[in-house]
């Protein structure tokens, strides 16, 4: 019988996500996919499985989950408080979730988007080449309490207890961008002001994009608001009617009429998506050739995440059945403290 993830409770906006649907831009459908694509790669590395597999994207908070058979899980992205049957488990690590145990994931400590990955991936039928929800286009919807999501076959059902160092991107910071076709609509002085300013992430924001709030005057382009609707892509920094920037994310529209000051590098977009209201984001304009090299380095790093896996060292305080471990006689397999709980 097919294993399944049972969703007892899920925060609003929880959805199944993968790498999205590239290839439908000409038909008006943006690629969508996980808001934090690095987190998707990290989960695949932790479970040593294909990064095409779908995971559960948790927005701001998690939920309560159960599996119908023992299943490996990994938790990545915005760190959230997580327990299995009440015992805390480490974020950015892989664990065994026993059949029938209750996985509870609470609010994010920093960042917005956390991910629950499962061994074998969430095996929903593909719709237009992918399993992910595209909420703006109405493709699949948010995951509701009571859902039962089928899991694919797991090639390595025994490998758990691994962790990855965190790539900090959950509280704003500096993101790099390149100039584009409409950058010349902005005076050099406006671009200087843009790159010198710190922007607060507005409360408005979703998988389509994030509005930023400037403390000073808004930004002005020569085109005003008369730019012809043009191709837009994730990462583009639109300057909207009130002069404040709006950074487009994966589920953005495919055309837009606001002038764009430039485009954020794909590898820096998770930092934009993860910034929370009030976090400060800054923009650094870099030459295209440098941007390509940055992307190349990040691509290599993403592809070699598996080399950075370390065994999870357990904190004895977090082992609820510590007394059941054979700690004294010395005749053990040596991995007791690294084995998954309970």
């Amino acid at each position, binding site marked *: 019988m097919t294993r399944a993830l049972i969703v007892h409770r899920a925060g609003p906006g929880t959805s199944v996500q993968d790498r999205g649907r*590239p*290839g*439908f*831009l*000409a*038909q*008006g*459908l943006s690629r969508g996919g996980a808001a934090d694509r690095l987190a998707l790669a990290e989960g695949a590395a932790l479970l040593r499985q294909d990064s095409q597999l779908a995971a559960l994207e948790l927005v701001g908070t998690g939920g309560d989950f159960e599996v119908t058979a023992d299943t490996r899980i990994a938790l990545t992205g915005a760190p959230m408080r997580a327990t299995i049957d009440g015992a805390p488990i480490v974020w950015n690590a892989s664990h065994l979730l026993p059949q029938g145990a209750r996985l509870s994931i609470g609010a994010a400590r920093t960042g917005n988007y956390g991910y629950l990955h499962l061994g074998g991936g969430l095996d929903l039928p593909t*719709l*237009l080449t992918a399993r992910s929800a595209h909420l*703006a*286009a*109405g*493709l699949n919807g948010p995951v509701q309490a009571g859902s039962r999501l089928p899991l694919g076959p797991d090639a390595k059902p025994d490998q758990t207890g691994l962790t990855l160092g965190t790539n900090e991107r959950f509280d704003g910071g500096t993101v790099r961008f*390149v100039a*584009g*076709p409409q950058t010349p609509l902005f005076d050099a002085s406006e671009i200087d002001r843009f790159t010198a300013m710190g922007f607060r992430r507005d409360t408005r924001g979703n998988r389509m994009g994030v509005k930023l709030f400037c403390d000073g005057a808004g930004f002005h382009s020569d085109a005003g608001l008369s*730019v*012809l*609707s*043009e*191709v837009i*892509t994730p*990462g*583009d920094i639109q300057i909207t009617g009130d002069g404040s920037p709006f950074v487009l994310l994966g589920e953005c*529209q*495919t*055309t*837009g009429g606001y002038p764009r000051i430039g*485009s954020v*590098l*794909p590898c820096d977009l998770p930092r934009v998506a993860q910034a929370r209201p009030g976090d400060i984001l800054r923009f650094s304009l870099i030459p*295209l*050739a440098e*941007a*390509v090299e940055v*992307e*190349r380095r990040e*691509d290599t790093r993403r592809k070699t995440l598996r080399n950075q896996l370390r065994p999870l060292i357990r904190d004895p305080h977090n082992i609820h059945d510590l007394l059941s471990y054979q700690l004294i006689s010395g005749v053990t397999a040596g991995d007791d403290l690294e084995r998954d709980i309970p």
Partner: protein
Amino acid sequence: MVPHSNWPRISTLGVDGFLISFGDRLSEPANRAALAFRAALDHADWAGVEETSTSLTSAYLRFDPLAQDHAALQTRLDGLLAADDWYKAELPGGRRLWRIPTVYGTDLAPQLGEAAQAAGLTVEQAIASISETQVRVQAIGFAPGQPYLGELADCWDIPRQTTLSDNVPQGALVVAIRQLVLFSVTTPTGWRHIAQTGFRLFRPDTDTPFTLRPGDEVLFPPTTPERLANMKADGPDGGATSEVLT
């Protein structure tokens, strides 16, 4: 129309794209050039190119910059651009004429009166003007399968509203700046909602998820709310028919 000497223009868009623009104002030759150039890109099928699309007056190409460097691709684009007079290109082949039954005004489309007034027409004149103009799909974009349609008579050069209308429904026909947009999803908009259809532009569960293509032509013949309700009940075409243009 003679294009300005600054056009066409090739720019990079993001780290992984090129935009080939044929003008910064909508014109029939620039629109045809964009569609034809994108078709030529697809036909060329260069290594490293991942997808192409068009807007009203530009073609776009997304590629893998780690597999193909910008300079080499730019040289190829320059060569292809110089190989033809794209502003004189033919419209795409296999175009179709769609007739989509449409309810003008009524409580289904509350802004017909104010749009007619902005265009300097009576409501009857406005319905005649829109329903008798055969418009063309100039671009698909913004939302899945959603067409920008034009071009309407001069009097329809009316601005977008300064404030957005909430949740204009799927199938709505909206107007501004001598263009119509037919909505594929329910969305807020600055365009005025003048008519309503029962036509589904995006059908993700079917073999033809996107119904309209750039170059297709469309007529919006008037119908009544009662007839539209019946046609909607019959399926996602909402009574629409199509024929191949020859």
